[in-house]
């Protein structure tokens, strides 16, 4: 309320009183009396001892984007009776109430508890409830006090992730542990890798008898490719100007979901994964293994915001966190400068896989149907092909991801295409 009702009432009362006294007109003095009684009643009814305590309960504190959280706020009156109490929970941006009300106007007797329950749908993010403001007033609302009560709570909303199969990762160097990435070295495995001279101790079933028949003096043994774990660095672009958004629908959310799905799937295959996100701030999660690392990466992704602090891919940081020869998965809509950076990383012997959410197809979904839209899409696609071409020419696997298509389907297509082009042999260690 902009104008205090108390001030208005006081002004009217005094005006009638002064005019009545000044002009010696009892009618005007009589008119002032109901206002005076109203005022005094408000004074009499005003709560004198305010003591309230608030407690917040959340049914879940960790959930995935699009999930629903039930919030319960309890307010206990430990002071005198309150005639009118307005409790309104300040919702952090990103929460959408689906059931119940986040506010209530009620009256509260001493010792009574007011309970407020509502459900809210949440988008990705980390939400923190801090204090709750309680407006307390007399019955006539002439004097209102605001009490700020601590009622803390936090919700981590992690991005949605799907398990991807057959992500074509081919780093130059792998780790010593067993994994699912072809290690470019012979040993115990399934896929045929090559042939070498027979060495004492080789099993007879390893001997390549066909080759031995052509060379009667020498025996040869088959080698199989070792499947090993590897270092994988996820590089997520969080620069604001690279991403389109239409209302609450943002291309960045698709990129975050892709990062989460890749992290989940690559960690699930026993690899060591780290995350470097750049945009608002440089956010890095040092490489690690297992479910705990997945949780760390998901938490980092949950709290990620778009920003414009960085203009380019931070190449020095990539080389700092991920050793040359390891796999780098870059998730970015890409610009010409990014392509140059990725080519430089490739030149430093990083095996780069690019997952690029396509801004053109994303924008296409949000435009009105018609000829201009189709034409614009064609032009945008041609531009994008030109943008991506240097990457493909350099042998960098690039997934130009139409975000209307599920990521797992897009990755399976990429894997089919990669099978023909990826070199199996390299400088293995």
């Amino acid at each position, binding site marked *: *309320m*902009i*104008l*205090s*009702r*108390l*001030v*208005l009432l*006081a002004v*009217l*009362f*005094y005006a*009638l*009183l002064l*005019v009545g*006294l000044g*002009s010696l*007109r*009892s*009618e*005007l*003095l*009589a*008119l002032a*009396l*109901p*206002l*005076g*009684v*109203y*005022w*005094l*009643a*408000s*004074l009499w*009814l*005003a709560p004198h001892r305010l003591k309230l305590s608030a407690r917040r309960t959340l049914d879940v504190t960790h959930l995935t984007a699009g999930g629903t959280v039930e919030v319960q706020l309890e307010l206990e009156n430990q002071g005198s009776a309150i*005639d*009118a109490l*307005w409790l*309104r929970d300040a919702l952090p941006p990103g929460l959408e109430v689906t059931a119940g*009300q986040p*506010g*209530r*106007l*009620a*009256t509260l007797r001493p010792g009574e508890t007011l309970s407020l329950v509502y459900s809210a749908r949440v988008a990705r993010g980390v939400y923190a409830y801090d204090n709750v403001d309680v407006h307390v007033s007399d*019955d*006539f*609302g*002439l*004097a*209102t*006090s*605001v009490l700020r009560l601590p009622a803390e709570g936090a919700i981590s909303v992690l991005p949605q992730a799907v398990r991807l199969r057959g992500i074509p990762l081919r780093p130059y160097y792998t780790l010593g542990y067993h994994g699912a990435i072809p290690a470019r070295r012979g040993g115990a495995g399934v896929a045929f890798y090559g042939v070498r001279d027979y060495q004492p101790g080789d099993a007879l079933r390893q001997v390549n008898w066909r080759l031995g028949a052509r060379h009667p003096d020498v025996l040869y043994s088959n080698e199989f490719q070792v499947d090993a774990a590897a270092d994988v660095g996820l590089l997520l672009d969080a620069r604001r100007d690279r991403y389109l958004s239409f209302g609450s629908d943002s291309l960045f959310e698709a990129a975050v979901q892709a990062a989460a799905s890749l992290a989940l799937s690559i960690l699930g295959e026993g690899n060591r994964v780290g995350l470097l996100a750049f945009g608002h701030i440089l956010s890095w999660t040092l490489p690690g293994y297992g479910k705990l690392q997945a949780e760390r990466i998901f938490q980092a992704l949950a709290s990620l915001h778009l920003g414009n602090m960085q203009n380019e891919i931070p190449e020095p940081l990539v080389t700092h966190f991920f050793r040359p020869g390891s796999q780098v998965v870059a998730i970015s809509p890409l610009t010409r400068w990014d392509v140059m950076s990725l080519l430089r990383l490739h030149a430093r012997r990083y095996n780069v896989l690019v997952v690029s959410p396509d801004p053109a197809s994303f924008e296409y979904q949000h435009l009105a149907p018609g000829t201009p839209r189709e034409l614009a899409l064609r032009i945008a696609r041609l531009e994008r092909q030109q943008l991506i071409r240097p990457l493909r020419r350099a042998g960098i696997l690039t997934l130009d991801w139409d975000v209307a298509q599920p990521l797992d389907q897009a990755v399976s297509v990429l894997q089919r295409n990669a099978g023909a082009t990826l070199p199996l042999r390299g400088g293995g260690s």
Partner: protein
Amino acid sequence: MKSLYRLLALSLSAALGFLVAASLPFVAATSLPSLFLAAIGASLLVIALWKQLDLLAALGFVLLTAAAGLAAWRGSQPLLCLSSGCASLAAWDLVSFGLLLRLTATPPDSRLFKRRLLRLGIVLLCGWGFGALALQLKLHLGFGALLLLAFLVVLSLSLSMMYLRRRDVRG
């Protein structure tokens, strides 16, 4: 909310009706300004509730009170003017409550609404009673006593206002 709207309509009708009645047996040209003010005030109160504008509600109440005061000043029946003032106060209170309900966007607590109505009724009855008593009583006070009385009234109400304002965040 329906009962609130009904009561508001009733109180606004009463405020206007009492003013018209105060101008009877014939509505003189001298009463027209006060009736005009009252009509604008009542309209502003309705618009304030409709458009959720607190400032309009305040202005409407001021106009309705001013209309009652003007009618009393010009010699209309004072008791009916007092009744119109009480009805205006009721209308303003109901509009303020309606605005609060709209602001909170919550269904009204029936206990709160009933108690507020009860207290408003008592306050209006007391206010009207005191006003009517004031119109009947004839006291002969000297200037000094009158000044002292006025000073005491102003002091006590100022103190109460200071107390309430300390509590009121809206100042």
